[in-house]
C-alpha cells in the first residue's frame, strides 16, 4: 500500500442514534489517487460513516483526518468547503428548482452585479452531462425526474465540486449498465488526476471492476481492508455476513394451494405496464428487479394506496375496488411497505397503537375502544414476534430498525390476512433478525398464507421464493421457477440494455 499521507483517515469512529448504535467503530483509510470500495450488509453503517465524513452527522467518538489534519465538521457546508463531495444514498433534489439550479445551488456562476449567470450555468451543466454521457435538459424542473435521473443529477453535482475526496453511496443502484460504465470512466479519470474516491455498492462485480482497495464493515464495525486483487467475492460475502449464507434462508417446503391473489393487465402511465401475475396460498413469490423498476408501485396499486389506469386485481375470486385500502384489508390483503418509517409505522405512536392500528375497529365495543383490548392485542402479537421494547406505550421512533419491522409485521399479522405483500422486509435489519423474519415468512407460508415478497437483495429472493418474477422498467420481464432462478438469470432479466456482462454477487 502507498505510504503517502492518506486523503481520508477515520479511526474508531462511533455514532449512535438514541439506543441504536449505527456505527460502533468505523475505520477507513483512503489514499489519494485510489478508488476505495466500502461494502457491507444493509445496516452495516456505511451510510452513517459517509454522513459523518460529509458533515451531516457529528461523530460521538473517534478520529477523522483529511490530508493528515484532524477535522470536525459542524455541517455539510464545512465539509464541502474542505473539499469533500458526497453523493448520498437518497438523492435530495429540490423539485421546484431546475436541474441546473439543483446542480449549482449555492455556487452559481456569477456575472456582473453578483447576478447569477444562467448562460454560464447552463453551459457548465451541459459540459458535465457530456462527460457523463447523458442527455437531460438543464432547464427542466427536477420535479418528476426518475430516480436514475435524480442520481445522475447528484453525481453531476458532486463531480462539479472538483473535490479532493469524492464519496459515492450506492450511486449505481438505479443506473443502467451504460450509465454505470460512463460513471466508472469519470471516477477513473478523477483517480488518475490524484483525487481519492470512496465507492459504496452491493454489487461485488462492480467493486472488482472499479476499485483497488476494499473495506468490509459489519454491524457498525470495521472487519477488514485489502487490495481488491487479494480477496475473492466469496471471502467478501463471508466477512460481510459473518456466517455461512445458507442458514439465513430457512426455507420450509410447502405445497401451493389455490390462487388467492390474481393481477391482470395492471397499467399505470409512467410507472408500470401490463402487469399480470398470480399468487397461490402457501406460496412465496419473489418480485426482483433494480431499484426504481417499479415493484413497489405495483404492490401499492394492488393494495389500493395508489390508483391504476387499467387492469384488475382479484382476491379470493372477487374483484377488488381500486384505490381503497380498506376494501383490500377486508378482502384479506396486507402490505408491509418498503419505507417503514414513513409508511409502515406511525413512528410517533406507541407500540400498542401501531400494532392495533388496523385491527382497532374490530376491537371497539359499541364504538368505544378500550385501552385494555388494545394492550392485550399488542402484548399478544409483540410477544409472538419477540418485539424488544421497554413497554407497550414506548414510542416506536426510538426502536431499532429490526424491531420496528417486527411491529409492522405484527400489525398486519394481527389482521389475519390471506395474502401478505412484503416490500423489502429486511432492509436495514441486522443479520439475526433477518433470519427470524425469514423463518417467520416461511412458517406462515407453510401454514397456507400467500406471500408476495419484494426484495432488492438477490440472495434473499433466491433463498426464500418458490417462484421469481423479474420486473424491468415497469414490466414483468421474466418468470423463473425456483430451479431456474440463478443470480445470472435474474440480473440478466432485470437489467435494461440486454444481457451485458452484468452478474450478481
Amino acid at each position, binding site marked *: 500500500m502507498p505510504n503517502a499521507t492518506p486523503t481520508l483517515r477515520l479511526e474508531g469512529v462511533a455514532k449512535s*442514534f*438514541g439506543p441504536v448504535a449505527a456505527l460502533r467503530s468505523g475505520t477507513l483509510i483512503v489514499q489519494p489517487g485510489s478508488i476505495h470500495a466500502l461494502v457491507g450488509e444493509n445496516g452495516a453503517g456505511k*451510510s*452513517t460513516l459517509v*454522513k459523518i465524513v460529509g*458533515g*451531516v*452527522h*457529528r461523530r460521538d467518538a473517534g478520529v477523522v483526518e483529511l490530508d493528515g489534519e484532524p477535522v470536525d465538521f*459542524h*455541517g*455539510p*457546508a*464545512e465539509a464541502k468547503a474542505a473539499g469533500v463531495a458526497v453523493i*448520498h*444514498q*437518497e*438523492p*435530495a433534489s429540490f423539485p421546484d428548482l431546475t436541474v441546473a439550479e439543483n446542480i449549482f445551488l449555492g455556487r452559481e456562476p456569477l456575472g456582473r452585479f453578483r447576478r447569477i449567470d444562467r448562460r454560464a450555468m447552463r453551459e457548465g451543466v451541459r459540459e458535465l452531462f457530456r462527460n457523463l454521457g447523458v442527455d437531460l435538459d438543464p432547464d427542466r424542473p427536477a420535479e418528476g425526474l426518475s430516480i436514475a435521473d435524480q442520481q445522475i443529477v447528484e453525481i453531476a453535482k458532486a463531480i462539479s465540486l472538483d473535490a479532493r475526496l469524492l464519496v459515492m453511496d450506492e450511486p449505481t443502484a438505479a443506473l443502467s449498465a451504460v450509465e454505470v460504465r460512463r460513471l466508472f470512466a469519470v471516477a477513473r479519470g478523477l483517480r488518475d488526476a490524484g483525487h481519492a474516491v470512496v465507492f459504496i455498492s452491493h454489487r461485488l462485480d462492480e467493486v472488482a471492476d472499479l476499485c483497488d482497495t476494499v473495506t468490509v464493515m459489519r454491524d457498525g464495525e470495521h472487519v477488514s481492508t485489502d487490495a481488491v486483487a487479494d480477496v475473492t467475492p466469496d471471502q467478501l460475502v463471508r466477512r460481510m455476513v459473518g456466517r455461512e449464507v445458507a442458514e439465513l434462508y430457512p426455507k420450509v417446503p410447502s405445497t401451493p394451494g389455490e390462487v388467492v391473489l390474481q393481477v391482470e393487465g395492471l397499467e399505470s402511465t409512467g410507472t408500470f405496464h401490463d402487469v399480470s401475475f398470480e399468487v397461490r396460498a402457501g406460496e412465496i413469490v419473489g418480485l426482483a428487479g433494480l431499484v426504481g423498476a417499479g415493484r413497489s408501485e405495483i404492490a401499492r396499486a394492488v*393494495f389500493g*394506496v395508489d390508483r391504476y389506469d387499467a387492469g384488475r386485481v382479484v382476491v379470493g375470486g372477487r374483484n377488488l375496488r381500486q384505490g*381503497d*385500502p*380498506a376494501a*383490500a*384489508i377486508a378482502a384479506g390483503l396486507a*402490505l408491509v411497505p418498503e419505507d417503514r*418509517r*414513513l*409508511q*409502515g*409505522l*406511525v*413512528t*410517533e*405512536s406507541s407500540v*400498542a*397503537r401501531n400494532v392495533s*392500528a*388496523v385491527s*382497532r*375497529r374490530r*376491537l*371497539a365495543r359499541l*364504538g*368505544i*375502544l*378500550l385501552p385494555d383490548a388494545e*394492550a392485550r392485542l399488542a*402484548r399478544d402479537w*409483540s410477544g409472538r414476534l419477540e*418485539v424488544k*421494547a*421497554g*413497554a*407497550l*406505550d*414506548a414510542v416506536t*421512533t426510538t426502536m431499532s430498525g429490526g424491531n420496528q419491522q417486527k411491529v409492522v409485521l405484527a*400489525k398486519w399479522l394481527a389482521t389475519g390476512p390471506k395474502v401478505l405483500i412484503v416490500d423489502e422486509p429486511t432492509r436495514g435489519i441486522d443479520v439475526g433478525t433477518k433470519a427470524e423474519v425469514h423463518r417467520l415468512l416461511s412458517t406462515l407460508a407453510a401454514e397456507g398464507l400467500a406471500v408476495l415478497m419484494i426484495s432488492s437483495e438477490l440472495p434473499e429472493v433466491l433463498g426464500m421464493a418458490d417462484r421469481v418474477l423479474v420486473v424491468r422498467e415497469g414490466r414483468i420481464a421474466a418468470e423463473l421457477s425456483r430451479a431456474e432462478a440463478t443470480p445470472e438469470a435474474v440480473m440478466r432479466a432485470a437489467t435494461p440494455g440486454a444481457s451485458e456482462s452484468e452478474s450478481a454477487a
Partner: protein
Amino acid sequence: MRTHARPWWQRALLTREMLTILILVVAWVVASAAVQGFDGPLTITYLVLDVAPVLLIALPMTLIIATGEIDLSVASVVGLSSVTFGLLHQAGLGLWVALLVSVLLGAVCGAVNGALVAYAGLPSLAVTIGSLALYRGLAVGLLGTTAVTGFPESWTDGATENLGESPYPVITLGLLLMIAVFAVVLHATPFGRDVLDIGRSSEAARFSGVDVKRTLLILFVLSGAVSALAGVYYTLRYGSARGDNATGMELQVVAAVLLGGVSIFGGRGAIHGVVAGVLLIGVLGSALRLEGVTVNVINIVIGSALVVSVVAPRIAGGLRVRRRSAAIAPHEPPRFAAGAHGDPDGGSAVGQGT
C-alpha cells in the same frame, strides 16, 4: 412486556395539557385572591357565556388541527349562520326549523372546505382563508345594513339564563355534553385514533387502511355544523343577527387550541387541554378587565402566552434531546434523506453561516 413505561400518575402529570391546566388553576387562584370582584358568582356566569362560542368551535378545531390541517373560516360560518337564522326567523319560520337549516347550511360550508382540502388536495390554510372571505361576504351580503332582532324571549333567555339559583348558565349542560362527546370521539374511538394517526403521518395512516380523505371531510363538516350552532347561540345571546357577528374569532379559537397543547403539525392534542386553554384566555381577560387593564394589555398577554407555550417546551425539550430539523413550519414528510432526520446533532448541522 410491561404495558406502561411510567406509573399512571406520572403519565397524567407529565403532559403538555397539565401545564395549561396548572397555569389555569394558578391564574384562577391568584385572580380570586388579588382581583376585587373576581370571586363573585357573576364571574362564572359571564365566563361561561363569554367563552361558550369559542369553546364550541375549539372542539372540532382540535380534531382538525390534530390532523395537521386548519379551518380559518369558522368565524365567518358563525356570521353566516347568524344571518340565516335571523332571516328565517324574520320570514316567519319556526325557530327550531331555522336552527336546523342554519346548522345544515354550516355543514354544507364545512363540506365545501372539506371537499377542497381532502378530495382536491388543496392546502387547508389557503382554502379556508378564501372561504373566510367568501362566507363572511355572503353573510354581510344577505343581511346588508340591517340586523334582525326580536327573537322570542323564551329563546334569548334560554341562551343566558342560569340553572336555578346556581351561577351556572343553562348552556353549561350543553357545553359539558359537547365536551364529553368530543373527548370520547378523540380519545376513545377508532375514529379518534385515525385522526391522530393522520396528523402524525397521513402516509402511514393511508397504508393502514384509514380513509384519510373521508376523515378530513367529516371533520370539516363537523367544524362547519358546530360553528353554525355557535352562530345560533351568538345570535340568541345578543338577541341580534348580524353579518359581522364574531368577526376575527377564528384567530381566538386557533390561539386557544394551540394554547391547550395541540400541535399545529398535527398528531398531538387532547380535549381537556383545549378546554383549559379556552378557559385560561377567558379567565385572563376577565381578571385583567376587572383590574381595569385595557384590551391592549390583554392582547399582549394572550399573544405572549401563545408564543411561550410553543417555544418553552421546545427549549425545555431541546435541552434534553436536541431534536431534528423542524425549522420549517407546516411541512411534508421528507421523501428522502431519512437519515438526516434523526440526527440529534441536527441543530448544528443546519444553517452554518460562514
